Every structure is written in structure tokens, then in C-alpha cells.
């Protein structure tokens, strides 16, 4: 997986000050791990790889939402 250019990381964190660098680190790690998991094994029903892959994808969606999707301003 192509690494992120440092300026893209910096821009993201500048645009979204609420974005946690640790979230971005986890997001990048999970994306990279996706490709390191044998997709044939991850396709086998009831395999550990399938369960791990499903749980990683759920976490990725959560992190993507947190890092990249603008959040509505909450009313107090």
C-alpha cells in the first residue's frame, strides 16, 4: 500500500484538529494489514482470518468516519 505523503498527514491533522494522530496511525496500520492477510484464508467461512478481517473492516469504517467525515456541530 502506498504510504501517505507527510504533508497529507499534516494537512489532515491541521484541517481536523479533533483528529487524533493515534487514530490515524491505527487506521493506516489496519489498512496495511488488510493486504497482508491471505484473502483466500479470509474467504473461508468461520475461519479466524474471516472473523479478524470483519472486525478490522468495522474498525476501519469507524476510524474513517472519525478522521475524514465532517461531524455535525452538536447543540448544547
Amino acid at each position, binding site marked *: 500500500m*502506498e*504510504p501517505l505523503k507527510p504533508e497529507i498527514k499534516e494537512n489532515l491533522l491541521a484541517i481536523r484538529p479533533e483528529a487524533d494522530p493515534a487514530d490515524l496511525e491505527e487506521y493506516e496500520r489496519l489498512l496495511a494489514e488488510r493486504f497482508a492477510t491471505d484473502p*483466500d484464508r479470509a474467504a473461508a467461512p468461520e475461519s479466524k482470518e474471516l472473523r479478524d478481517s470483519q472486525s478490522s473492516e468495522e474498525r476501519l469504517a469507524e476510524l474513517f468516519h472519525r478522521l475524514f467525515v465532517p461531524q455535525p456541530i452538536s447543540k448544547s
Partner: protein
Amino acid sequence: MPTKTIRVGDTTKPDPFTVAIIANPYLEAPWNSGTFVPDPITTNQPAFDSCVNYIVASLFGGLAGQAERLLGDLAIAPKVRVLSVFDPGVPSGDQNSLVAQDGVSNLLVPRRDNFKPFLAQHGVEADVAYAVSLSQSHTRASAWFTTDDDAGPGNNFTLDGKTFSHRHRNITPGTIAIHSSATSMTAVHEFGHALSSYSNGAVLDLYVDSKLGLNNKRGRPIPASFATYDGVVMASDPIRDSLGYPVTWQSYHCELITPAFPALMDNYWMAPGGIPEHCQHDRITRQFLMDRVRAKISR
């Protein structure tokens, strides 16, 4: 003809080591949705041809200032066949979609199971295949490793006392999805992943705290020796020169060939002076990839 020979490779063999570069006919958008749209690359052959030239130049060490020669090794270069496929006339549908747009990132994802049958329709068998996209929204490249034919022949090697094999053939080739605007070391970085193997040595990304792989180990303190590859002890990189290991990491890497620059599987965009072309593979990755190519060339 949709298939073009860029480099003839070893003409004494019926199936020389082959890299295929394909214009992706249809994008799945988003990934796993079953929705397919024409990839704009199919109406822009100049963009495809330019990307083919870039990929070939980078794989053979031909970019300006490029330090990593890889397939440009004089004993290897003449043996490598490179083919391109530009076939905008194929019908829409799942089987002619080689690239998907990831739903949770701007990654282009290779739809790996479709590469072999797509290439077979064009009379091509590949060891590593790139699919080039001109997606309007997704520009970041990714790759799946090769699924080796572990029932077939190969050249054995040892890693930390265990025996593995540089297999001559694959069940699924190494597959890469790349944007037509890709530059610098991206094509070579992805080739490093794609040429590696799920069962005989995985070349991992070194810019995250990765799991165990051929080029990545975990633990602290970092031992002096990284691995013993085919009887040769290779040292660890104790400081991840020029970048440094984050304190939270457990990963550590093999010694660098050029300590002043990040390894090619690391974040080459962070090369000092902003020159990624000066980056080379670390010692074990270089040896492994070269041995793997030599094994496939020998089949």
C-alpha cells in the same frame, strides 16, 4: 491488437517471467458493492501509455536518480517479459473489473481473482500484474501478494532455520492497482509486495507497526541480528535511520543498504531532501526479491 509487447524477455522459454500492465476496463465502486462503472482510463490511451512507460522505467531502475536497480540487474533484465493490455471493448461486468474503489479510504484495490482469467482471455500468463486506473476520486495504490503454487517446483531457501521455497509458478499472481498519475517509487514499492508470497515470505509495509513478515519482526529490545537467510546472518536496523522507531512500536527492520535513506517498503516519501528515488530495499528484502525473480526466471 489489445496486447502489446514492451519487452520480449527470455525468448528461449515458452513462459518467461512476465509482468503485465493492464488498462482497467471497469471500476467496482465502491468495493464489494457489485456496481461497475467504466474506468476513464479506457478512453485515455495516452495516459495509460505514459503510465506503462513510468512503471517499466521504475522497475528497471530507469528513473532520474534512481538507486534501486531491481529488474535492471544485467543478468535479469533481458529475461523479463513485459506486456501491456489496452482493451476498451470488453463488456461490462464483474469479470472485467480489475480495480475497486475502497469505501473507507482513497485506495484503489486490485480485484485479484479476476486478473488471471482476464489475462488468459488475452493469451497472457503473468507473475505480477498491474491494473492502471484513472479513477476520479481514488488515487492511492495497493497490492496483494502472490498466492504460490505450493504443489509445484521451486528453489528452496531457509529463513531462521525453516525451509521455504521460491515457487516457480502461482495460483494467483501478485496484483497491483495503481493510478495513472503515480510517480516516483510507488510502482517499485507495490511490486515488492506483489512479488512476495502469502506462504513463502511476505514483504510488508514498514511505515506502520506491522505484524511478522519477511522484512518485519517484533519485540524490544531490538536484537543485533535480524534474521538468518540462507545461512547468511543479517543485522537489524537498531534505529530506523533517518526516521526513527516510534516509542509505541514493537516492529523492527533489517539493516539498510543505504542508511541515509528509508527502506523502499518504508515511507519513501520521507526521504531526506525529498528524493524518494534515492531509497533502496533493505538487505533481506533485496536478497529475497532478487532470489525470487531468479528462481522464476530459471523455470
